[in-house]
């Protein structure tokens, strides 16, 4: 168990290194730079024009639709991994099962495509 967790220690060290480097650079910059804050410096930069409204704005539904389709095929990929990791083990049966699964999903994709869901209007 401990050997196993120690292998994952790399991940922890990696995270620590990321934080340390980021902190170091920002900390150094904070030490070196002069600090004279003013309101004009704090506002968002929009090509030199004064920004209108607040930073958050309503986005369009088509972003959401693409994200939703992405999740659907992401889930498909999740099912593909365990099969692909050991594909020869499941033989013809596994191949048929996975083909049926993919064909059914392709059916859904064709349907979404024909309905114009993949078009960015």
């Amino acid at each position, binding site marked *: 168990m401990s050997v196993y967790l120690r292998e994952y220690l790399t991940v922890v060290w990696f995270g620590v290194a990321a934080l340390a480097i980021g902190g170091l650079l920002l900390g150094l910059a904070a030490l070196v730079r002069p600090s004279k804050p003013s309101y004009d410096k704090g506002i968002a930069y929009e090509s030199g024009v004064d920004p209108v409204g607040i930073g958050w704005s309503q986005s369009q539904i088509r972003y959401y639709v693409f994200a939703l389709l992405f999740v*659907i095929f*992401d*889930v498909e990929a999740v099912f593909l991994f365990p*099969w692909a990791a*050991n594909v020869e083990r*499941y033989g013809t049966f596994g191949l048929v099962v996975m083909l*049926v699964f993919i064909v059914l999903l392709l*059916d859904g994709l064709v349907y979404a495509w024909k*309905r114009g869901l993949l078009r960015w209007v």
Partner: protein
Amino acid sequence: MSDATFLEFVVFFSAAVMILGGAVGVITMKNPVHAALGLVLTLFGVAVQFVAMQAHFLAAVQVIVYAGAIVVLFLFVIMLLGVDESMDLSIEPIPIQRPLAAVMAVGLVGLVGAAIVRARDALIIAPGDGIATAADAGTHDANIKQLATNLYGDHVFAFQLTSVLLIVAVAGTVLLTRKWPKDVADTESSDA
């Protein structure tokens, strides 16, 4: 306490703090985007717990699907609805609701907690007894093999029908954006 169990304890404890802290953040944050980020913390903590239980594959899926795709979806919904038009949540339609919910929540946590603590003695399973773990198999991809054996073995029918479920999801996505087929006057349907 030996070195190994101490390490396990540290991992478990930090992951548990992440999960609970994130969950509390989700329900207390005023800004919905911050709440969504709290959810990321919770889901990531769950992934760490999966790792601690030697379920690498589930941990990876947890990060890719949940912390990645699904939270992005949440953020799109939040952006779609507009963060600036936040609702005033202090108005109560039924005044007793919130205290009652708090009492219920505490009671439920107490009940389930007590049940789990008392079950500890009854459910100690020796290694190799009951559910097999990746450690028993001894290889690195034993985990994923075990999952696949279940998925393409006894649960293959449920797995196949999951694809029908995904078709339903595609149909739902289409419905969200489709135009109304016939031009029925709004007045006719809105008061029905």
